[in-house]
């Protein structure tokens, strides 16, 4: 065997091990979700002995997984959409205009500050605020909170992406007859698509994953999101391993689908040959 071939085999072997290690927990979860309760406790086995869909039907039937999913999807979609629009517009202004008194820098620092505060610090004031406006245990309450937190993140990400896009291109569009806003939407944002995709993915994942805020600010399946909902499967007396594994599988699906949809934007270059 030649040296090159040995290297190639070694490379594949290392990658293979990495993939197995990375995917094993997911496989374990999938297998557990298809097992009968007795089999779960019988010992280690990599395939379900008596496959069953019971866990899934109990998850949706007894444990309101449907509501949790709907809540999560609505809260994540709306809050990320709102913060993408607001944050991108703000980022564009910061990237293109030099404000007086060094306000650009102060605005960025202020936005960063929001993000750097540990959520545990925010939880109690937010709880009191939402109570005051009757938004406790509502989707709208969560949307407002997540929207605000995400916007600061979007501003930072998009500001650096937008600065990379040559000013000439939107100026050309403006001379060609666009208003600034139209040039932004028709020329600048299509070029910033990879950046928007990256920002969106990150925002979606952090929002979807959030546990602390959602746990504090919601209390019934009317507004509880997936992570909080799953935690209710841990009861005082017993832990429902089967439905919990099923919830893990179902909960991971939306993020995987979303990642598959937007990943092609990562591959594309940022400005792909606009200027020489």
């Amino acid at each position, binding site marked *: 065997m030649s040296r090159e071939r040995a290297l190639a085999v070694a490379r594949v072997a290392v990658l293979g091990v990495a993939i197995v290690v990375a995917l094993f927990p997911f496989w374990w979860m999938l297998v557990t979700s298809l097992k009968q309760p007795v089999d779960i406790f019988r010992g280690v086995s990599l395939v379900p002995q008596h496959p069953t869909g019971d866990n899934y039907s109990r998850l949706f039937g007894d444990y309101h997984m449907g509501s949790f999913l709907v809540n999560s999807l609505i809260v994540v979609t709306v809050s990320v959409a709102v913060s993408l629009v607001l944050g991108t517009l703000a980022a564009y202004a910061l990237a293109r205009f030099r404000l007086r008194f060094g306000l650009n820098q102060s605005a960025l620092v202020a936005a960063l500050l929001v993000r750097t505060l540990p959520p545990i610090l925010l939880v109690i004031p937010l709880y009191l605020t939402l109570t005051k406006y009757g938004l406790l245990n509502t989707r709208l309450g969560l949307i407002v909170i997540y929207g605000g937190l995400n916007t600061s993140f979007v501003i930072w990400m998009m500001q650096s992406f937008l600065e990379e896009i*040559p000013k*000439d*291109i939107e*100026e*050309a*569009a*403006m*001379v*060609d*007859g*666009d*208003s*600034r806003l139209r040039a932004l939407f028709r*020329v600048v944002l*299509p*070029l910033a698509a990879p950046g928007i995709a990256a920002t969106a993915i990150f925002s979606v994942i952090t929002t979807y994953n959030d546990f602390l805020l959602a746990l504090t600010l919601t209390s019934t399946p009317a507004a509880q999101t997936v992570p909080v909902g799953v935690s209710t499967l841990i009861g005082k007396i017993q832990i429902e391993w089967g439905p919990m594994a099923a919830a893990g599988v179902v909960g991971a699906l939306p993020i995987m689908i979303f990642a598959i949809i937007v990943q092609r934007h990562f591959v594309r270059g940022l*400005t*792909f*040959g*606009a*200027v*020489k």
Partner: protein
Amino acid sequence: MDVRYERASKSFGSTQALAPLDLTVPDGKFLAMLGPSGCGKTTALRLLAGLEQPTSGRIYIGDRDVTRLEPRHRDVAMVFQSYALYPHKSVAENIAYPLRLRRSAAAERDERVRRVAELLGIGGLLGRMPRELSGGQRQRVALARAIVRRPHAFLMDEPLSNLDAQLRLQMRVEIKRLQRELGVTTLYVTHDQIEAMTMADLIAVMRDGALQQLATPAELYERPANLFVARFCGSPPMNVLDGAVEDGSFRHPTGSIPLPGAEIRGPVKLGFRPEHAEVTDHGAPDSLAGEIYVVEPLGNETLVTVRLEDELLNIRAHAGFDRPVGERCAVRPAEGRVHLFDKDSGEALAKPGERGASSAGHAATAGI
């Protein structure tokens, strides 16, 4: 339509990019703004495009005051140094973009895009994306996008500076021909004096945000308003010597040159162009003594550098020039082809033999 700057100025913070500028480009003329980088020429262009707001003054296109208008309402077309094509749109979509925004009918639009593309020789590229084009092709697409509608004015910001030398020469000719054909008022920003001289009807020479001289290329060459203009236009640049005028002659440590009719006296700077002097034998009358320093044969002519005491002069000589390096020689400027400048301000003084810049009769007798 004509384009007019009225005391238009621009400051960025405390730095003044453009001093109050008064400038008119007559309808259909090609005006080149010429100057080194940072001289305010691009700022002036951006003010006209509406991409910057003037700090003071007004700007007119035709009779319309456009000072506060957004770029899209000014109806000008601009070609950027970077071409600024829309990378996510095909060549055809790029060219059609200005039309699309003006809601012209689809059939007419396609027809015009096709015609303009033919005119610029990019008819076969309409389906391509900008990233698939060479620099020269991108340049043509940018031009096509500018001429596809009939704007009130073309603004061009160093459109040729990213092209290689040969392509630049070719595009220079094409842009000039296009401009004449379309008859659209054009402002062309460049730092390349050859581009300005060859293409423009009028040249505005800028320096440090201020207009130095506005003149036709011939006038600029014959009568530079000051030392800066004199040195900036012409390659190799004009030779300039410090000396003094006494008794109708220019005195220099290396010799003296008669200035028939010179009315001034005292210290001055004397300038003459490399093509307006000859290298002759050491000791010849009315010449400056020196020695051959470098000889550069170019084929059609020879560039000779002559060293006077501690200054170097550039002289254009004929192709067969054969004096060896180091030989003692002399430089004799052609009569009537020398320029005098104020020693301190650098402003041009009346040419020897002329009473004022306007006395053309005298100039003729002085051999101009």
